């Protein structure tokens, strides 16, 4: 595949702007129909299929464009690994289990234990809060709201999915932090005996704040994907349930939810992928500590992506390598999550096609 794209690319590129105006421009490509202008009704021998035509050129060009996706994914893996390996080799501690991040010292010592824990905990909080609400909204939009309300509301939800994460981060830090702090103090006062709500403060920029901001961010994605699968529920199945004397909720439980289940699972996985990789919102809302702690409400917490954003400016060569190594871990995790989600969606699509 190596040199084919560039060669055919030149041909096509040269031709593209000519074609619309006069069909003769197929010049070097010699496509049979445009070249010789055979008499109407044919006559004579059929034109031979040429070995190298515009057709093969264009096909090669688009094939290589498609292959670019694979090239990029492989390149991401290769380049990240090439920068990460030297840094990990220079690491004086275990990269996976050590809980500090000092890669810029003369004896670099760093590990992703705290980061990975924070990444997972914030994402779990986000999903636990966002998924039930998202499914509720999706059902509201697909089955409860009158169309006059559902269309604009769905539109607004889609718009919210487009709001940049830095805005949510800023809002989380400047505004949402205060109510969350109050809530944390309250939780600590009455439920302090549960370890995750324990501690002596200060409270505020905690895993809970980060997780809740993430929840608000993944909510629109999970909602709009779930709404889509709920809307695809075959009307005749819904009618079948209703005709059996089901109430609306029973109809949803018999026909809509089982049908939408794989789609919702995939939506949740995609939301999880988004939450795991979220950088700026967490960099702005987490308190950044290096303790391994399951406490949700004390100031603290950290995540792989947030740490990259926060530590990048002070990083030297090894420091950058260390950050890239942590990014590689994140890449691997999100890749697995996304591939699982996509595999579910693909299986479901095949299932649906074969059933139809």
């Amino acid at each position: 595949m190596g040199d084919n794209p560039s060669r055919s690319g030149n041909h096509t590129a040269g031709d593209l702007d000519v074609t619309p105006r006069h069909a003769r421009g197929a010049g070097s490509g010699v496509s049979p129909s445009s070249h010789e202008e055979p008499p109407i009704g044919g006559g004579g021998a059929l034109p031979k299929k040429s070995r190298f035509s515009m057709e093969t050129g264009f096909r090669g060009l688009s094939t290589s464009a498609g292959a670019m996706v694979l090239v990029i994914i492989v390149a991401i893996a290769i380049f990240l690994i090439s920068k990460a390996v030297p840094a990990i080799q220079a690491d004086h501690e275990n990269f996976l289990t050590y809980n500090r991040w000092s890669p810029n010292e003369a004896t670099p010592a760093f590990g992703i234990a705290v980061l990975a824990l924070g990444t997972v905990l914030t994402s779990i909080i986000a999903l636990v809060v966002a998924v039930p609400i998202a499914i509720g909204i999706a059902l509201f939009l697909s089955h409860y709201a009158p169309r006059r309300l559902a269309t604009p509301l769905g539109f607004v939800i889609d718009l919210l999915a487009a709001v940049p994460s830095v805005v949510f981060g800023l809002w989380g830090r400047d505004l949402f932090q205060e109510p969350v702090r109050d809530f944390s103090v309250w939780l600590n006062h009455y439920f302090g005996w549960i370890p995750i709500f324990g501690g002596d403060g200060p409270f505020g920029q905690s895993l809970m704040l980060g997780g809740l901001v993430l929840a608000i961010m993944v909510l629109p994605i999970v909602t709009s994907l779930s709404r889509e699968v709920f809307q695809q529920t075959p009307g005749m199945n819904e009618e079948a349930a209703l005709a059996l004397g089901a109430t609306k909720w029973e109809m949803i439980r018999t026909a809509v939810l089982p049908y939408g289940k794989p789609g919702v699972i995939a939506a949740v996985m995609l939301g999880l992928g988004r939450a795991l990789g979220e950088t700026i919102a967490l960099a702005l809302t987490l308190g950044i500590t290096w303790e391994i702690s399951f406490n949700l409400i004390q100031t603290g917490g950290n995540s792989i992506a947030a740490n990259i954003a926060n530590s990048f400016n002070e990083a030297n060569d090894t420091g950058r390598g260390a950050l890239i190594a942590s990014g590689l871990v994140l890449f691997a995790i999100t890749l697995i999550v996304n591939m699982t989600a996509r595999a579910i969606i693909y299986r479901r699509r095949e299932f649906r096609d074969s059933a139809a």
Partner: protein
Amino acid sequence: MAKRIEASNVSSYYGSFKAIDNVSMTVEPKTITALIGPSGCGKSTFLRSINRMHEVLPNARIEGRLTIDDQNIYDPDVDITAVRRMIGMVFQRPNPFPTMSIYENAVAGLKLNGVKKKSLLDDAAEKSLRSANLWDEVKDRLDRPGAGLSGGQQQRLCIARTIAVEPQVVLMDEPCSALDPISTLAIEDLMFKLKDRFTIIIVTHNMQQAARVSDKTGFFSIDKTGEPGRLIEYDDTQKIFSNPSQKKTEDYITGRFG
């Protein structure tokens, strides 16, 4: 337990569009009534009005009086789910729940009604599948997906699902239009069998089918598109097909129109 259905001056609307106009008819218990007529004449709309499936569509409403054993099913204090349990419905395309097995499909209505005891469900599944002439074909694979059956079997599974909740009336909306002739015959046989227990109303495009299975036949028609459908003639099937009193009916069944 079959019941009498009585419609008097029923008109159905979709928003401002009037789909059927002023239909009155009485359906006796334990009979099969066929509704025939050209496409868009409102026979399906009328059928769906009988168990209030009509109003599933937004802005759909009805005027007039529809009673089942003298209870008006459109009274404001009526429980729609009770109406639909009492008046079951089988649809044009077989629609078993795609995520459920054959067994689960058959007992879906019972589970909705809170029946949890396994032995009861098992009994009911067997009984309804037997009634639907399906038991012998599926008894060895009750846990397989219902969607894996053939079209005719799926439709009989849907009938089993409908009669499992023991309704008093069964409505069938062109139940055979998506099926091959052999499956159609199986469904028609089944209808004769079910007639002992249920009042059956069937909408069909197939006039031979109407003539074969029904005791009474109603002929619906429209003057032109956009006009509401009307019940032109309602009488014994034999009379409709041999000696109809209306010119329109005669034109339709002799194939001169529609």
